[in-house]
């Protein structure tokens, strides 16, 4: 059952990346526990989410074993999502 083991490892990685958000959230709050806006956390959170998306693409959706074109395409999409999200955020910050 080597396959299942690999999928299990994938799930554990995804779960720990999810749990990492709890830690980020903890460090993101100030001493009184109120939320603060942060130009550091937002890109970090987005990048972690995209890493998870790419893992889901590669492992769960079996893009790993798919033709190279699909690998490139999904990678391009991950980059595209990242660029769009970050630029929307920073443009919003800039023209605020």
């Amino acid at each position: 059952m080597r396959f299942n083991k690999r999928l299990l490892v994938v799930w554990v990685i995804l779960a720990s990346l999810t749990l990492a958000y709890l830690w980020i959230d903890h460090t993101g709050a100030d001493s009184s526990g109120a939320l603060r806006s942060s130009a550091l956390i937002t890109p970090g959170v987005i990048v972690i989410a995209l890493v998870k998306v790419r893992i889901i693409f590669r492992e769960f959706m079996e893009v790993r074993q798919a033709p190279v074109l699909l690998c490139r395409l999904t990678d391009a999409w991950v980059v595209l999502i990242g660029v769009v999200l970050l630029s929307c955020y920073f443009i919003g910050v800039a023209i605020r």
Partner: protein
Amino acid sequence: MTSDLAETTKRVRSVPGQPDMWAFVLFETLVFTAYFGFYLFYRARSPELFLHAQAQLDLRIGVLNTLVLVLSSWSVARCVQSARAGAYGPALRDASLTALFAVVFLCVKVSEWVRLSSEGNGFDSNDFFTYYYFLTGIHFVHLLIGFVVLGVVVYQLRSPARRDQQLVETCATYWHTVDFLWVLIFALLYVVR
């Protein structure tokens, strides 16, 4: 299950499921990217309002839901591999597990909606909650469609006369899309500052 790693590397590299479903995945992802872009843009323009409203959300519920949905994705992935290896019994079991996790997700989601709206945070309360209900709601619709898709998987697996592996993989691809869209929605709604 007899397939092993050596065998998979030798297998011809083929697109999982119908390539047509991948067109849907990529197109729908673009649409969601646009939703997210608008959200982040307006969020960056009035951070105080969004932060204040976001504090009403319980991050632990979001984390729980993400774990549950990733579990369901894992089940579907196992279901596909079992079906490929001809183990239709375990494949059916995994498909039912997927549906079970999805039901848990839906229940948690609905209870969160009920809690928030009873606290006075409705769809039109403020900009953050508009995006919150809109994004979780449209994702909810995708998940409901996902139940139909899982039904197709079960229907395919149950009779020896059907068992179309390509169709099973197509459906699984849809399910994983629902999963990774949630991963993005979760990060953007619950954790982004």
